């Protein structure tokens, strides 16, 4: 299941959705807003998405992961809007029979999301702001 949302991510609900009686391994990755980046103090992050395409690109990644690994269930949830320190920006959950598949698929999904999905993050520091990756 793929979700792009302005609401806080409900980890318990995500876990519930991953359950499968055949699952022996579940890997859950959380991308969290931390209080600093490159030694600059972060006040908040502002996420913006090209919604329609962000969802279809995340679906492509999930489809590719399903081809490469024996996935029983997965969930991808990405936040948009203003996020404060400690909030979860992205949750990837993968349930598989065996643990290697869960770890590898989960990592593939988050790594690829960061490369191809049209979502943009502005870091708002205590002393300025910048769109991440935008500048040479």
């Amino acid at each position, binding site marked *: 299941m793929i979700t792009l949302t302005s609401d806080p991510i409900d980890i318990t609900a995500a876990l519930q959705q991953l359950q499968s009686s055949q699952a022996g391994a579940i890997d859950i990755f959380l991308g969290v807003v931390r209080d600093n980046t490159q030694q600059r103090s972060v006040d908040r992050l502002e996420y913006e998405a090209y919604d329609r*395409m962000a969802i279809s690109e995340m679906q492509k990644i999930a489809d590719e992961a399903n081809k490469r690994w024996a996935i029983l269930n997965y969930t991808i949830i*990405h936040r948009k809007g203003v996020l404060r320190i400690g909030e979860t920006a992205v949750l990837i959950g993968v349930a598989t029979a065996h643990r290697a598949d869960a770890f590898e698929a989960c990592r593939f999904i988050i790594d690829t*999301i*960061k490369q191809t999905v*049209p*979502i943009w993050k502005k870091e708002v520091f205590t002393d300025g702001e910048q769109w991440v990756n*935008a500048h040479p």
Partner: protein
Amino acid sequence: MNSSVSVLLFGITRDLTGQSSVSVPLLEEARVGDLLTQLHQQYPQLAGIRSLLVAVNGEYAETDQILTPSDEVALIPPVSGG
């Protein structure tokens, strides 16, 4: 025939142009590469961005793809989700 295409702007491209979409005149048989050239002429500040891709109807497009006025076009600056 004079026509134009509307281009959606996000992130730094929206900030630099001050607009969330811009209308760009479209010559017949214009390609994605032509659109990028026109946008750079119209908004020289776009040159400060590390890379710019174009999406057409929600899919990444090559520079030789031909555009039509009904396409949903978007400028895609470097993504930074996750």
